[in-house]
């Protein structure tokens, strides 16, 4: 999105330039799907589709820079995700983070393996997804969506200080699991 300039791309997309819209879609969709798969599993693709319908319907009303646009998309995704989970009568699955770690991470005594070990994206997301949902969401918005504290706070409807606390707790928990003996 940076090559053309987000403002130009957004203006073009708003005025019917399909390639400009696809440029925006390609830039946002991978991270959006990654976040949704972590937070709502097999509903992710449906929620992402709902989200883009909302984006298309509101595109002519949106006004802001690229970071604000991303935050806006993730806000729509959050609302659609909550709607879908309610409609399906589902709660986010609870997974024990230590069980995930046992299954996914090499043990400290497996020295040779640990030296060569490179964590996969799937493992990282499974560990983040095993955190309490509010902590997982904030960390995903910071890391996967690339939002700063202020925009993350806007997406989740919490104060920036609360977002910092949630992120800190989540990371501390992950550190405890990763540094386990």
């Amino acid at each position, binding site marked *: 999105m940076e090559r053309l300039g987000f403002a*130009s791309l957004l203006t073009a997309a708003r005025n019917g*330039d399909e390639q400009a819209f696809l440029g925006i879609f390609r830039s946002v969709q991978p991270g959006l799907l990654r976040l949704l798969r972590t937070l709502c599993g097999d509903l992710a*693709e449906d929620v992402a589709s709902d989200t883009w319908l909302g984006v298309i319907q509101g595109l002519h009303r949106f006004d802001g820079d690229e970071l604000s646009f991303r935050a806006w998309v993730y806000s729509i995704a959050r609302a659609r995700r909550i709607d879908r989970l309610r409609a399906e009568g589902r709660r986010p699955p609870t997974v024990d983070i230590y069980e995930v770690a046992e299954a996914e991470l090499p043990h400290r005594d497996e020295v040779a393996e640990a030296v060569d070990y490179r*964590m996969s994206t799937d493992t990282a997301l499974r560990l*983040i997804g095993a955190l309490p949902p509010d902590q997982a969401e904030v960390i995903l918005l910071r890391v996967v969506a690339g939002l700063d504290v202020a925009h993350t706070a806007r997406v989740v409807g919490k104060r920036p200080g609360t977002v910092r606390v949630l992120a800190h707790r989540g990371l*501390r928990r992950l550190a405890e699991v990763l540094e*386990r003996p």
Partner: protein
Amino acid sequence: MPHRPAPRNSRLDAATADRLLSAAGAPGYPRLVQLLAAAAAPDSPRPLHGVESVIVAYRRDIPAAIPAGAKAVGTRSAGGASQDAGPGFLTPRAETPGPPLNPPGQIPTR
């Protein structure tokens, strides 16, 4: 479920957490840095999920948002996005219509 107590050195502080999330890394937490990097790693190139249905919705809904009397110019059917965005991107449609295809009273020859 094996629940192990956390080692003392894993009690990272809030400032370190902030630095980690700002992609600046933090000494002493190499595996946490690795986890965050893995979570943010770009996807391998592959077809994007859902692009077809989203484009159908875009084609259906977006033309309605273009103000009447104006049309988009500079669009491309393939390749990069239009570089013509900005002032003058919307050009007024011609006010005077061209001659009708079949003037009244004239029978088409074909």
